């Protein structure tokens, strides 16, 4: 048994624990090519540089704004969709809608970016329709102006994952005890009353759990989508912690600086998840870890 385990332990040590150890370059001035410990120790210099950098505030602002919008819309939309799907009477129709709703989840961000370029570009159908309806008199550059970025990104995120996120709620709704419905019927509840007094309270633990998880992941404001959809004109609105660390750490070769920002984010995220777990234990008596 250990014989099977040893290669796996080696794998996890190399691919997961060595990078954790590698975080110490965040406290050094690491120069690639040189042995790691011949680099100078600089303590918290990189962290200070980040806090004082002119980008700091808009990076934090973008991360929290994009995540916040994600929680407001991306979190509520699947609940509403799941409740509406549950009210559909035709089983085949319901299954069909569900299947269609999963499609965007399975496509890559590159494909989504291609779709956005085609639909929101100057000749895209969005501008075309708005022009024809007379709402605007010249095409809007949805992807070229920073002020649209959060809206475009949030809409895209919701579009991509709303169907997928209903799976969990629908399975929670399916688990509602049928005796509760019978009791509701005896009490003379209508359809809306059933949703409000029976379904919603029954799936409340699931909702609260996913909400807490969402708060725990608030620093994950997306990465691939920003890199693909963002451009130099929208940088002030798309740059989040992850893309910033990538840009400085890898593209500009400031490995130590990038590692420091990554480490900072990792620590805060871990604390948030631990806090979320604690809240969930208190509120719901379930542990999410």
């Amino acid at each position, binding site marked *: 048994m250990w014989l099977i385990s040893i290669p*796996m332990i080696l794998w996890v040590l190399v*691919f997961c624990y060595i990078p954790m150890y590698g975080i110490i370059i965040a406290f050094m001035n690491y120069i690639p090519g040189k042995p790691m410990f011949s680099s100078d120790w600089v303590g918290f210099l990189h962290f200070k540089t980040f806090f004082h950098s002119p980008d700091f505030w808009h990076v934090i602002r973008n991360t929290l704004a994009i995540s916040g919008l994600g929680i407001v819309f991306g979190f509520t939309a699947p609940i509403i969709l799941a409740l509406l799907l549950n009210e559909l009477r035709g089983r085949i129709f319901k299954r069909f809608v569900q299947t269609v709703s999963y499609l965007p989840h399975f496509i890559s961000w590159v494909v989504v970016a291609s779709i956005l370029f085609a639909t929101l570009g100057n000749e895209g159908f969005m501008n075309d329709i708005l022009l024809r309806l007379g709402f605007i008199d010249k095409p809007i550059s949805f992807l070229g102006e920073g002020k649209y970025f959060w809206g475009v990104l949030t809409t895209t995120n919701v579009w991509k994952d709303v169907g997928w996120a209903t799976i969990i709620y629908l399975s929670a709704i399916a688990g509602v005890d049928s005796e509760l419905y019978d009791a509701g019927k005896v009490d003379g509840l209508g359809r809306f009353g059933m949703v409000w007094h029976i379904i919603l309270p029954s799936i409340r633990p699931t909702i609260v759990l996913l909400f807490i998880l969402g708060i725990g992941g608030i620093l994950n404001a997306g990465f691939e989508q920003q890199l693909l959809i963002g451009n130099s004109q929208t940088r002030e609105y798309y740059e989040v912690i992850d893309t910033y660390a990538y840009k400085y750490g890898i593209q500009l070769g400031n490995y130590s600086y*990038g590692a420091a920002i990554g480490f900072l984010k990792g620590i805060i995220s871990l604390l948030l998840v631990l806090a979320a777990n604690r809240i969930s234990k208190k509120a719901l008596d379930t542990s999410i870890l």
Partner: protein
Amino acid sequence: METTGIKPSIGSRIFDAINIVFMIVFMFVMLYPFINLLAISLNDGVDAARGGIYFFPRVFSLDSYTFLLKNDRLFSGLWVSILRVVVGTVTCVFMTGLLAYVVTIRNFSGRKFLRILFLITMYFGGGLIPTYLLMVQLGLTNTFNVYWIPGLLNAYYMLLMASYMQGLPDSLFESARIDGASELRIYVSVVIPISMPVFAAIAVFSSVGHWNSWFDVILYNSNGKWDTLQTYLRKLLLEVEALQQIQDAQAAYSKYRNISSNTLRAAVTMVVTLPIACVYPFMQKYFVGGITLGAVKG
């Protein structure tokens, strides 16, 4: 929820009608971007620049697709993508399944240690830059191996598979052990066949992930030799050089004059999307099961 027995009231019927209309609009929103891109990809390139193509091509043309059929970069990307999905998925499912089996064996003293060792990685990691430097030091950059070795084992998949295997009766393994079968043998001939639903779910997650990933390609394999289909599309979208090559081809062969970057991008997007769109509806049972399993597990 069906409230049979009583005739639905008028209000209830109106709601049903509105709900059905809403769902139809919803499906339209989900599908329309793909329909629109399909129409653009089948349109003449020069004409498409005028805009206004919605559902059907205005000037029908297959030129974008015939151009792609002669494009070596598309085919090498397709080949690398397929190879990556097959190798990456098979190795990940087999090895993570084995790990899940090992951490569920009751009489194995190290199972708790192993489980915790992997669970920690779900909540804390080295992050992008230390991982990148490790790959460079291991010599995995600009190789195919970087696509499957770092993804061999996955803590989240391990959790899902282990929680499924824990529900299996112990007697199944015991009788095989009494017959003198090795653990590896039990895994292959007992565990895998009866855990098919969860293996299928993980295979769906893993293969979709491999097919769709592009960032690790540009991060680790920047020399372009192992470009996947996704990175080819990304280059067409974001990089000028990729479009330049097309313009060179157009200058050399007049028959390609009627394609444009827009129609070509749309055609590649269709090629990238089609395999997934054809396969995922049939895998629904498995991935829904996998998600639900994860939810029960918490």
